[in-house]
């Protein structure tokens, strides 16, 4: 009797770790961005994407709100904001 004891690749995507955030999330201001990609590089979730200047954004389905992107941004174009505040702003 064989039952699966293996997992298929990249299936962790089903796990929406964005629910882990406890009150803070990064706000990509998108004004001073110089497209240095440092925020992409330092994200432990690999959930920040973007291409040209001022296009960078986190995938909040997975972002755990650690804040490293905001801490490393050389032009202070990412700030950690209270999540409630953020929700109000985008709605």
């Amino acid at each position: 009797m064989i039952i699966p004891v293996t997992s298929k690749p990249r299936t962790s995507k089903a796990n929406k770790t964005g629910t882990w955030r406890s009150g803070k999330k990064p706000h990509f201001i998108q004004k001073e961005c110089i497209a240095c990609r440092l925020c992409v590089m330092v994200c432990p979730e690999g959930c920040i994407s973007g291409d040209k200047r001022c296009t960078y954004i986190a995938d909040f389905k997975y972002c755990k709100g650690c804040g490293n992107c905001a801490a490393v941004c050389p032009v202070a174009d990412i700030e950690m904001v209270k999540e409630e505040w953020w929700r109000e702003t985008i709605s």
Partner: protein
Amino acid sequence: MRQYLEGSHAVAEIVRLCKAQVISAYPITPQTHIVESLAQMVADGELNAEFINVESEHSAASVVQGASATGVRTYTATTSQGLLYMIEVLYSIAGLRLPVVLTCANRAVSSPINIWNDHQDSVTVRDAGWLQFYAENNQEACDLHLMAYRLAEDHNIMLPVMVCMDGYILTHAYEAVDLPEQSQVDKFLPEFNPIHCLNPDDPISMGVLMGPESYTETRYAIHQTMMDALNVIPGISDEFERVFGRKVNCLIEKYRLEDATQVFVAMGSMVGTIKEMVDGLREDGQKVGLLKVIAHRPFPKKIVYEALKNAREIAVLEKAISLGEEGPLLSDVKSAFCGYGNQPKISGFVLGLGGRDITKKSIFEVYCALAGSQIDVKFIDLKI
């Protein structure tokens, strides 16, 4: 072709004929002659395999685990402390359903250190999820290795197999052995076709973390497979006979059991001595027989019951003991009768530990003890 070979060399020849592709082992007496032979075959170009010299048995088992997971046929051999050092890898190999074949050149375990034969090493790992077969002689050891690869890689089984052969008594004994032709082996044992393996084209994750919601099912599946193997084995044994022209038993062998009221039960090379004893007692008109247990795991409980149900007195002879309880094989045989009315007397005898000779006198001592009341544990040839 019949050849006069040392047991270790004969097994190495079988592993060569089975075309093992990755072999890894760590030296430990009395397993060394097997892997030395294989290393020489690789060095001479007679066997196209990677022979990996490792720094421990733990790594030997780990190397064959990694190689098996990558989809190649593997082999390792060990004994005693080496087998105990492998234990956690043995469980892991079975858990990942990898068809590794291992020879255990049975030896006592420390302390005191003792390099001679008994079964305490392999009996200790009987719960690891490996099919476990015990050979009586070198021909059977060879045949069981052929069966081992075939069974392990069967898609209905996909479990590792351990072939146990008594250290020195078989590994270092020269006997005439009928080695098959390559064409016969190729017919019996097709190329290894893994269900899944480590491959960038299908990048699965193996050895994942399982929680309470799914772990139980993996153990159930292994247990169920063991039970299924009891049904699969006879068919493959028949196929073995068709290809190689001789019978191979993988579960049990009955010896003069038909009308026997007194029956010996044993595993491994001591069966040879017991057979002689049975013959002698039969000449004296005693209704004595022998049940050889080959498969310790899966334990063919029903078959054992059927073979023994007419006996009045049963003696289970073992080269191992669950200290503080009784012999493990004794427990298994007793459990085969559980739930049936006509419980015979089932006594347990521990003998041949650490290489102490098992003589006909030893067996006669067991036979004499059978007349008395049921015995849980009696050490034979004890010098205290």
